[in-house]
């Protein structure tokens, strides 16, 4: 392959064809365009006219250029151009591939593996034996066939730590021990770490060294902190390049337990910065849910930081037995507790029964002796569900009779009455100091300051269980802190006061540390080794190099100091560790971490990991040539005047092409338009509706009836309805219709549950259903007419109030017309409406009762109103009613009933208002 200007050509000699282009230009230019044939009647006048010049018009320059470009593209395309051609590298002899295999390479691990695979394949073609040396898991060098290594590539994974000293030493020893020389390919992750220099020297002793790097900066995130009410995040990058924005995702579980992104934090590296910070302010509840922060798009362990107790601000309820004495702040039993806890915990104040529903993590009771019965029950229940009760002694507790004779559930031990005072003015002996903490105590390992003095305490009754419950004692072995489990929770008693009256303990730093150990508070700073002295931490979840958490399984526990300070390695993996109630996260990057790029000595060739694969350009160029030639055809036709006769074909072709392009988008048109159309049709105008029964004739009659009623309303009133609509209860939305006409036929299907739910919602929101059994009520309701039985079945699931026959003073009788009865095609049937409230009474002298509320949700009758209303398209009555003039009168009355009904639905009980009484009386002629 020949490379010209970054583009390789598989057949470079074809490019000589480009030299022929000028010749082609001249030839094409000399050939005139084909003559245009035109029909022209005026040719009779042209006969005999001679041309002045014998030279024809030349081919236009742009057409020539088009053709030149087409030919040039053709020649270039056939020459086989390739973008980003791969240069073959020569080499022979054994090859050692050194991999950093750390988390820093995890984001582009797949690319690395592809590159490695390609290198191995090349070595395999060259018959070179290959050895692989991942520095995070080194072993003796095994020079084997490249194919064997290729099959093992899938097993390689980045580790979440940098190579430790021991590992580098192992690797160096393995390199030195290998016999003979070899070339080395070092796939670096781009970060420096101590101990690289000797390894580099050892490798260069053996042969040529080549380094491949990604060239992408490595991003990392430090441990989270909490200050100023916000979560503080520290972001690192290895390359102080141009400004860059990153997004940090706060992952956690939502209240439903689903893992999701709870918040995002933007971070920005300014130009030249390698470290930046971002702050995230979140409500405490949400903050406590966060389990990890990760940099978006960076799939590596270094771009993940796990959250632990430091983010979890515990809620501590403080309850004091004595009311605060004004002005005596320092004597307040809670003063030192507040001072100790305020920076790291959320403090709650209030009455005990008010605090318990808030479910605090810890309840601190300072010198509280007795609790009421409900308080005690509630508190016990809370502790048994995992709460922690921390009690402090005091004068009241000492003076009370609690836990004297038998163990009180809320006290860890029995107490002797009165307590004791040592080292006071009236007593012998010195104030006591603290004994060192026993090894099984949660305080184990904490240093005991010499200046802590206890001058008074409450004394525990000697008891068989006492020894197990003491977690801190004085120098004379009297218990200072006792603890007992209660259910899932625990009760802890400090045998001294929470203020400095009885001891100097609250004044010392030990007090804060003890509270931390008891998980009453959690430090906002990462723990020091000394803080964790004597503790053992069990791994809960550990991270792999990609930052994925997995269960720790049988990994051994880690000593506290090592967890705090030891470098990460196979024995200490990043992850979440716990000890008792406390949780600590060990992250890849510590507080003081900084990412610095790897430096390579002079003479070591460093290649960037190029991600540009070979891209043959021949196809696009040939396609371009074809397109240009097609354009030339069109242009030549246009010049020759032959394009327009072919217009139909051209248009068809264009339509074909465009439809091919637009087909996808057309097919993607939303198909749910039907519902919207129905809604628009029904809601844009007032529309009467009837229920489709499935009986085509009945539905037609109902449609025609509502059409007749709509016409009548249109002519006589200001209601101007749109043409009526038949609704399918199972499918259509009902909310658009003020009234539903429901003819009852024994054959119609029972609506489904969802339809009834919609119907009930419709009735509750002010709709009205007019049931029409169409049987003239021959049997009376509740009797054996088939329509009546069907009506009962249909209406049973409906939310219908008590009914009564229409009373004489119902508003239906005067909503628009004054009516006494409500005939349809049948004249006699009674109709039923919602019953008036029982307290409605007729006032003497008033024609009707004062019924001002509500519209009846149903009207039930059997007079076949739709039959009487029905008109055909021309407005002629469809069905006969009665006989002769009296029949027409009956039809008129039925229409008046329809008008009244719709008026009643639309205006409510407006006409029921007593204001109208005089006018109505006047009309009634009274």
């Amino acid at each position, binding site marked *: 392959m020949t490379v010209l200007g970054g583009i390789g050509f598989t057949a470079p000699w074809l490019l000589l064809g480009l030299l022929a282009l000028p010749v082609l230009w001249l030839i094409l230019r000399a050939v005139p365009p084909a003559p245009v044939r*035109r*029909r022209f*009647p*005026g040719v*009779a006048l042209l006969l005999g006219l001679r*041309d002045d010049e014998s030279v024809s018009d030349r081919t236009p320059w742009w057409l020539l250029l088009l053709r030149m470009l087409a030919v040039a593209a053709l020649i270039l395309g056939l020459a086989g151009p390739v973008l980003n051609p791969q240069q073959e590298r020569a080499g022979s002899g054994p090859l050692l591939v050194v991999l950093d295999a750390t988390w820093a390479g995890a984001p582009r691990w797949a690319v690395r593996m592809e590159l490695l695979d390609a290198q191995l394949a090349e070595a395999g073609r060259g018959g070179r034996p290959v050895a692989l040396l991942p520095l995070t898991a080194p072993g003796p060098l095994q020079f084997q066939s490249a194919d064997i290594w290729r099959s093992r590539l899938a097993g390689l994974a980045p580790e979440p730590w940098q190579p430790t000293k021991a590992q580098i030493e192992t690797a160096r020893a393995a390199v030195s021990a290998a016999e003979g020389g070899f070339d080395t390919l070092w796939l670096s992750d781009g970060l420096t770490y101590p101990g690289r220099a000797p390894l580099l020297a050892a490798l260069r002793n053996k042969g040529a060294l080549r380094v491949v790097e990604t060239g992408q900066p490595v991003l990392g995130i430090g441990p989270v902190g909490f200050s100023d009410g916000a979560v503080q995040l520290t972001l690192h990058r290895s390359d102080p390049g141009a400004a860059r924005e990153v997004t940090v995702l706060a992952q956690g579980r939502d209240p439903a337990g689903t893992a999701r992104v709870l918040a995002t934090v933007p971070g920005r590296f300014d130009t030249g910065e390698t470290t930046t910070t971002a702050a995230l302010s979140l409500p405490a509840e949400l903050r406590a849910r966060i389990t990890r922060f990760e940099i978006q798009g960076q799939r590596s362990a270094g771009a993940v930081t796990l959250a632990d107790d430091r983010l979890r601000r515990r809620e501590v309820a403080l309850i004091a037995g004595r009311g605060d004495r004004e002005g005596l702040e320092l004597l307040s039993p809670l003063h030192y507790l507040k001072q100790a806890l305020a920076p790291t915990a959320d403090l709650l104040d209030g009455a005990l029964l008010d605090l318990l529903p808030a479910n605090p993590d810890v309840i601190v009771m300072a010198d509280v002796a007795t609790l009421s019965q409900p308080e005690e029950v509630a508190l016990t229940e809370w502790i048994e569900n995992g709460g922690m009760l921390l009690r402090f002694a005091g004068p009241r507790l000492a003076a009370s009779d609690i836990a004297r004779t038998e163990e009180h559930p809320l006290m860890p031990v029995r107490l002797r009455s009165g307590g004791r005072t040592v080292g006071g003015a009236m007593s012998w002996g010195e104030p006591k100091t603290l004994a060192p903490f026993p090894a099984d105590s949660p305080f184990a390992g904490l240093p005991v300051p010499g200046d802590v003095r206890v001058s008074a305490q409450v004394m525990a009754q000697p008891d068989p269980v006492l020894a197990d419950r003491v977690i801190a004692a004085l120098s004379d072995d009297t218990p200072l802190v006792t603890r007992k489990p209660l259910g899932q929770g625990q009760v802890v008693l400090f045998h001294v006061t929470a203020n400095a009256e009885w001891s100097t303990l609250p004044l010392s730093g030990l007090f804060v540390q003890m509270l931390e150990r008891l998980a009453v508070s959690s430090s906002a700073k990462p723990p020091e080794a000394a803080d964790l002295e004597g503790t053992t931490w069990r791994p809960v979840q550990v991270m792999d190099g990609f930052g994925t958490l997995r269960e720790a399984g049988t990994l051994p526990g880690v000593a506290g100091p090592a967890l705090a300070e030891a470098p990460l390695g196979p024995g200490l993996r990043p992850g979440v560790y716990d000890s008792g109630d406390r949780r600590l996260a060990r992250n890849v990057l510590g507080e003081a971490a900084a990412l610095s790029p790897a430096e390579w000595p002079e003479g070591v060739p460093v290649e960037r990991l190029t991600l540009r694969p070979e891209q043959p350009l021949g196809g696009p160029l040939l396609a371009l040539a074809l397109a240009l030639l097609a354009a030339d055809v069109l242009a030549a036709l246009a010049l020759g005047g032959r394009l327009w006769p072919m217009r139909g074909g051209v248009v068809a072709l264009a339509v074909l092409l465009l439809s091919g392009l637009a087909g996808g988008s057309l097919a993607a048109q939303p198909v749910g338009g039907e519902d919207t159309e129905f809604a628009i049709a029904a809601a844009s105008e007032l529309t009467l509706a009837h229920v489709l029964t499935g009986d085509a004739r009945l539905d037609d009659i109902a449609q025609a009836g509502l059409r007749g009623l709509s016409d009548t309303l249109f002519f006589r009133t200001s209601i101007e309805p749109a043409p009526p609509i038949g609704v399918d209860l199972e499918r259509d939305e009902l909310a658009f219709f003020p009234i539903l006409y429901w003819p009852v036929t024994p054959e119609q299907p029972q609506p489904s549950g969802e339809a009834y739910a919609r119907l009930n919602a419709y009735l509750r929101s002010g709709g009205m259903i007019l049931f029409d059994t169409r049987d003239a009520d021959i049997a009376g309701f509740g009797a054996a007419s088939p329509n009546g039985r069907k009506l009962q079945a249909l209406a049973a699931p409906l939310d219908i109030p008590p009914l009564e026959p229409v009373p004489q003073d119902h508003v239906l009788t005067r909503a628009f017309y004054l009516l006494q009865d409500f005939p349809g095609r049948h004249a006699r049937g009674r109709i039923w409406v919602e019953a008036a409230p029982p307290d409605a009474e007729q006032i003497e002298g008033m024609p009707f009762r004062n019924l001002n509320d509500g519209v009846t949700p149903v009207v039930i009758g059997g007079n076949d109103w739709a039959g009487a209303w029905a008109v055909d398209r021309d407005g002629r009555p469809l069905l006969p009613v009665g006989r002769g003039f009296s029949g027409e009168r009956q039809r008129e009355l039925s229409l008046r009933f329809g008008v009244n009904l719709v008026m009643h639905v639309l205006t409510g009980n407006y006409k029921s208002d007593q204001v109208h009484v005089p006018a109505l009386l006047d009309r009634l002629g009274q």
Partner: protein
Amino acid sequence: MTETPDLRVRAEAEAARLPPLLARADHLAGTVLLGEHGRRRAGLGDDFWQYRPAQPGDSRRMIDHRRSARGDQQFVREREWPIAQSVMLWVDQGASMRYASADALPRKADRARLLGLALAILMVRGGERVGLTGTALPPRRGRNQILRLAEAFSLDAATDYAPPEHRAMIPHARAVFLSDFLGGVEEVERALTKAADRGVRGVLLQVLDPAEESFPFQGRTIFESVGGTLRHETLKAGELRDRYKARLAARRDRLATLCRATGWRLGQHHTGENAQSALLWLYRALDGGAA
């Protein structure tokens, strides 16, 4: 033959916009074909038309004394003129007429037939006899003649440039020739001369396509007549434009000269223009002698 009703409908529409055409009466003596109904103007018929005040120059014998005796003024009794005129049409059916330079434009033949039939309808409505020159369709009255004309107009001739039909011309009738007159001018000359010999006067309407007027062609072109009988090749069509225009003007001059010599009138119409104006012009040209 679906063309016929369409053509007729459009022609009726055109004709409906004009008052009935009244042919000039100065050829009354020549054409002795009396019409059945009056000409709606004063004349030598038997039917009373109107009384008009006597004017200087009126013969005293013309004074109607029964009318004049009722007052001081003298009246002349006029009678109606019951005359029918014969109008003969020749619409060029040659292939050269079946040309339109653009889709938006009608073919020249379509426009010429439309004008011809519209004119025929006006004539028939006015009581005239309308027919074609030649023996195929002699002048007759009545609505049926319209149908026959429409049918005759829908027949295309195969020849490229059809010569004017001048046989069987009724003496002292009127004639209307609609064509592009791009063919041999000698035929036109012969026809007009013959018509003038017989006392036939009339109108030539030259119907041209706008492209034939402006000659908007460029480049190497082979021009063919519509029938394909004539052909002319040029290397630069644009160079021919001025000379073509000059020849077209010369042809028009020749026709105008011919018309002046024979008493005919020459009109010009482009298919890009409104047909109504052309029909109006034809109406004026046929009726205009009276004005």
